[in-house]
């Protein structure tokens, strides 16, 4: 069975780890009550992780557009192939939409991002207290959509590996 190209595999796993870290940190930081140095640190790290995901996502999209994914096995039902394409498409959309929504959310709160504490990133929007609660909801629900999509993605991979035993999962293994 044909495998994904090496850069595609590398990008997949780097982004996967970054997203898991950013997601876990996001849930942790919002549960810290009040105002503590740890909380502020986590917020900054969360934003840096998000921006890193966005950067890698751009590289990955460019790579994906120029290097087609390997074909699915011929015995895989059409509906499953379409479902897989749809889910991958959704994951790509979320990979961009989530960091962007978080970025706009923090701008609306009047807290721009200084990447790694060193590089101030563009502020293209004035603080907007009216829009802030809406952006928070958008960022939250995009993440819940990601969580659901991620679960399906992992379950599908496990199904291919242990039920179908069709080597689909092996295409992306390092």
């Amino acid at each position, binding site marked *: 069975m044909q495998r994904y190209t090496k850069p595609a595999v590398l990008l997949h796993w780097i982004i996967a780890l970054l997203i898991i870290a950013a997601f876990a940190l996001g849930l942790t930081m919002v549960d810290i009550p009040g105002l503590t140095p740890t909380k502020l640190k986590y917020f900054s790290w969360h934003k840096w992780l998000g921006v890193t995901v966005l950067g890698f996502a751009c590289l990955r999209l460019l790579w994906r557009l120029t290097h087609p994914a390997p074909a699915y096995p011929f015995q895989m039902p059409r509906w499953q192939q379409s479902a897989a394409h749809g889910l991958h498409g959704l994951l790509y959309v979320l990979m961009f939409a989530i960091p962007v929504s978080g970025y706009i959310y923090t701008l609306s*709160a*009047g*807290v721009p991002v200084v990447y790694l504490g060193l590089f101030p990133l563009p502020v293209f929007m004035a603080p907007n207290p009216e829009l*802030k609660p809406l952006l928070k909801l958008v960022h939250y629900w995009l993440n819940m959509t990601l969580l659901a999509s991620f679960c399906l993605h992992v379950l599908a991979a496990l199904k291919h590996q242990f039920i179908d035993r069709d080597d689909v999962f092996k295409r992306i293994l390092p």
Partner: protein
Amino acid sequence: MTSRFTLITTIAGGLAALSVASATLAAPLKIDTSKSTVVAVFKQMNVPVDAKFKKFAAQIDFDTAKPEAAKASVDIDISSFDLGDPEYNKEVLKKEWFNAAQFPKATFVVSTIKPSAGAPAGTKYDVAGKLTIKGKSSDVQFPLTLKKEGGTQVFDGTLPIKRLTFNIGEGEWKDTSMVADEVAIKFHFVAAP
């Protein structure tokens, strides 16, 4: 006829009284708080953050003809500090930060105002005064610019301070890598004619 006459005399009398009042109280300027701002700018992990003090009162008695005679003071309501998040606003009023329960007001009192050397007359001044926050006082100096816009006078300036001088941020918050020691207090006062 009589009633109209009474009305006119009343208005005339009122106007006369007003002009007398404004002549005797000519000195202190009326600060339009709706157009004026006091903002603290600080860096949190290198991220610049602006926070407004929404309530303050300024008494400015200033005449460009004799700036040395100027008197000015500003009272800032600490509990009106707005970081843009109600939860954080509550947090910074606590003991480690502003301790607003014990020190509800910050004050600035001008001691001297001198025209800046080299600047066109009536545009730039060097101000010295005493700033008190959280019960701690410190002498500060800063440049002030004055602009006339229409009939109003606009005072702009930035006071650079160090938050730890005033004990703002105690305990673990003394760490200046989290919140920088340097804070700029920017003010913009619009005085009605």
